[in-house]
């Protein structure tokens, strides 16, 4: 496994600074304030802002946590998913699309417990060509990974991850992606890939799962959703702009 055990966080402070080119002390002040706001409202700043804007957000009874018990875990997840799929001029990012709630719901079900996967031992590390071989289920991977992100953020920046500047959040996630952070039972690369794929699922899965709010994920990609037929446009030379439809439009 690609691990670096030079320090208890699996990454030396010096290396971290080399990788990010940042000045650690400078990140302190604003972070603390942000952390307090997050704690007081019970939501990260991003989520709070979004709920106010979006009537489908906080007022929806499904927008509560099913899996994550600690608010702070959910805040880190929200911030990390937003870094992976950020809001920009083309449209909303992961948080506004409901991705953290999507991931929360998925982890509470069969996906979180690897229900339809072979999880019997004995467990051996294996070759990369042999695929996933750890005993950990996804719910545990997420909890461990999210808390590891927060530990790294605290030890390197003395600031909660959700309150870091984006460039520092990116720097931390890059370390996870590269496999430089030690984790128990899996590599940080495996955790990061899981976080990345779950985020993209939340962006683009049908809105019935809690993400892709308002089908905004699909709109950014010009994907028309669960159309019943494309027969009428198949032979068209021109690109077809279509309003997307979701399963909600079909099921009663």
């Amino acid at each position, binding site marked *: 496994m690609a691990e670096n055990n030079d320090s208890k966080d699996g990454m030396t402070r010096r290396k971290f600074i080399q990788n990010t080119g940042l000045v650690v002390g400078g990140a302190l002040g604003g972070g603390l304030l942000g952390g307090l706001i997050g704690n007081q409202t019970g939501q990260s700043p991003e989520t709070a802002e979004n709920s106010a804007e979006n009537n489908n957000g906080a007022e929806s009874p499904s927008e509560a946590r099913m899996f994550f018990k600690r608010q702070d875990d959910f805040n880190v997840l929200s911030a990390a998913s937003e870094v992976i799929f950020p809001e920009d001029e083309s449209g909303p990012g992961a948080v506004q699309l409901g991705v953290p709630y999507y991931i929360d719901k998925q982890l509470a079900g069969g996906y979180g417990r690897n229900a339809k996967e072979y999880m019997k031992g004995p467990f051996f590390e294996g070759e990369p060509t042999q*695929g996933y071989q750890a005993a950990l289920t996804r719910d545990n991977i997420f909890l461990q990974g999210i808390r590891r992100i927060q530990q790294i953020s605290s030890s390197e920046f003395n600031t909660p991850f959700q309150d870091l500047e984006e460039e520092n959040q990116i720097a931390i996630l890059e370390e996870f992606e590269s496999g430089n952070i030690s984790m128990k039972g899996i590599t940080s690369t495996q955790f990061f890939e899981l976080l990345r794929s779950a985020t993209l699922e939340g962006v683009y899965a049908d809105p019935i799962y809690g993400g892709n709010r308002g089908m905004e994920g699909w709109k950014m990609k010009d994907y028309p959703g*669960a159309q019943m037929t494309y027969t009428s446009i198949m032979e068209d030379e021109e690109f077809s702009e279509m309003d997307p439809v979701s399963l909600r439009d079909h099921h009663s």
Partner: protein
Amino acid sequence: MTTELERVEAVVIGVGWAGGIIAAELTKEGIQVVGLERGQEKSLDDFTMQKDELKYAIRYELMQDLSKETLTFRNNSEQRALPMRQHGSFLLGTDVGGAGVHWNGQCPRFLPYDFEIRSQTVERYGEDKIPEDMRIQDWGLSYDEMEPYYDKFEKMAGVSGEDNELTAPRENPYPTPPMMETPLITKFKDTARNMGFHPYHLPSANLSEQYTNPDGQTINACQYCSFCERFGCDYAAKSDPLITVIPTAKETGNFELRPNSNVRRIDYDGERATGVYYIDTLTQEEFFQPADVVILTAYTMNNTRLLLHSEIGEPYDPETEEGVIGRNYCYQVGLAATGFFEEEKFNIFAGAGALGAAFDDYNGDNFDHENLDFLHGGMILFMQSGLRPIANNPVPPGTKTWGREFKQQSTKFFTQHYTLIMEGASLPSRNNYLDLDPTYTDEFGDPLLRMTYNFTDQDHSLGNHQMEIMEEFLYEMGADYVETLYDFGDYTIVPYQATHNTGGVIIGDDPEISAVNSYLQMWDCENLFVVGGSAFPHNSGYSGVTPTIGALAYRASEGIKLYLENEGGELVKAGPEKKMKS
């Protein structure tokens, strides 16, 4: 406690395409057939308005529950095989209809060269052309013998397609005309012609028009909704066993379908199969079903595994090369190249499973291999199956896979990229095989199947040769950037490649190197017929294996009828001269 049931004439294990075809053909002749299927019953209602990428394409709703049963895998005999814990490289089906429900509908025939690959290769290039570890062999059945069975399968499924000078020759036209020609297909065909190739519309089981087959079953016209592969069709417009052969069998009154019936073992007295043991998966009760003829029509993997576990036939030993069960496991050398277009925007989300076009100029022995370091080849194709957004996030080479740049590029290029595919032949190596795993077990404690498999030098040479053509093709088409994959390395079970697993119980005319004769009857057990991709001595260079499995199932049906009429006996004598016993 095992409950012994009343004897039946024929029992079919696994009710997908092969089992469904055989059930239909036998019951039409008045033969009583019981179909045992480990999965659930399925109907059209299960698929209506189920256009849900996450549930079906990402979470594998229609696939085998791996918590109950999987297989183990290693690249070579030196490694420790470990369980395939999650779906990836190929997707094992389950439930009534099997993998025939969630296929894309690709309907190619194999080439005449395939059926006589060894003798034709030796004749044209000499014996030395065949690498030391390669074990290509003739099928014991020529293309001319296969042609009527292909025809029968295509008429049953209503296949849509068009003739081409480089594909296998046909006695009759396709039952239905080819599917629509879209601008993306025109683009492919024009580029191919400019480069001197011979493009054709992919033959498809997504039908271009409504069609009623010779059994009286109607298949509807495809609505181009883009939810084929990994999904069931809610329009009854993609031929599958649920709307064709299974109702045909049921309508005779001679077919009893038992879902939730998982066969653990075939009972074998040293000469004949006496019946099968199965578990009712709802109650966990065990039954013994005696039968005159047992027909094993599970997927490639379970055909091999059930024989090994039932101790029927001699297991293949890669050291001595003795034994046949598990021999010649093959797969597919599948590669993709993607072109990125800065200015053009495509309706790439709109399509149908087997909508597309291909050329066979570098497939089979359609081109001279004299100065090449590989045999066979593979079709190069464009599939307009309809892209879905979770699975498709294409970015030009060198782009980060998350963050701001990724979002901008992947949302842009979703509709501005074009992917070519090469489905390369997979030729057998003595080192690639299937046997039973010594460590890992299924839900009943029975050993899992163990796959030992890696790509060979042949595969790499073939892949690189085709990749060069695809790269040139995409630039010719006007791509601004092209993403390629050369020197693809070891086989990995992680990313999806193709559900075209073949071999393990192969067909042939020599019992030393084959398990079943040309009627799919086992050399070592005359009342046991083993039908499926497991019978292929190698896999051809095409995007589908179903018509060949279907053709073999029609051939086997004839054999089983003869066997029952003759009241026993081997249908084919071993050796190159095949003679039917009268």
